[in-house]
């Protein structure tokens, strides 16, 4: 039987990200701090107005599920990636953990996670439940 190891939820306003969306080939300082090159490349193809805030929301949700933040752990924003596969369906995504996020996930004996995202023009939301 799966046990819940942690859970996290985050909500963001897409309007706050409008000025942070990089132009192709020219990353903003903010995008460089938070997103990997792979995320930036895909987000620019797949609804950047939503994919960038959803990516940030995903990262925050995972931090919360770990009970940590980027200021009190070695986990980097870039250790958690939300990768979209389809511009027409933002529900078609994968989450990739690497670095210290992956290490911490294993230390917590997580076997899998369940996630959920939702969005409208005003808000995006990402939720994750870590399971052992």
């Amino acid at each position, binding site marked *: 039987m799966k046990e819940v190891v942690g859970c996290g939820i985050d909500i963001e306003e897409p309007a*706050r990200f409008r000025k942070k969306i990089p132009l192709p080939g020219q990353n903003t*300082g903010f995008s460089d701090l938070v997103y990997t090159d792979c995320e930036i490349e895909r987000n620019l193809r797949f609804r950047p107005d939503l994919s960038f805030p959803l990516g940030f929301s995903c990262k925050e949700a995972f931090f919360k599920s770990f009970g940590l933040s980027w200021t*009190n752990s070695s986990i*980097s924003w870039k250790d958690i990636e939300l990768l979209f596969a389809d511009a027409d369906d933002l529900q078609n995504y994968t989450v990739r953990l690497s670095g210290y996020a992956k290490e911490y996930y294993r230390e917590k004996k997580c076997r899998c996670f369940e996630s959920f995202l939702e969005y409208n023009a005003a808000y995006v939301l990402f939720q994750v439940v870590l399971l052992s």
Partner: protein
Amino acid sequence: MNMGKITANTRAEVKDIVYSFFSEECEFDLSKINDDTNIISDLEGDSLMFLELIEIFKKKYNLSLELKTIAKYIVRHPVDTIGQLIDTQMLMIEHENNIINL
């Protein structure tokens, strides 16, 4: 150390940027912000604002700063108030990634 980036006006500049930033982002009366204002409980500041500020200062002062370095410093020297944020920012401008060695 980057003493070349620090002038007599730097602290006043940093303070002005920080006060204005939070006043605008948090829709908070600028005249009510002071160095003792708590970023989270008074202004409802969040990670996104903090990252935006880092970006602003990196650009303005052409700083070589890694997020992990900032994070490691903040773990040892928590930033709760506007005044503490200004002090930390001054150290970042002065020392950049060497802030971790303070």
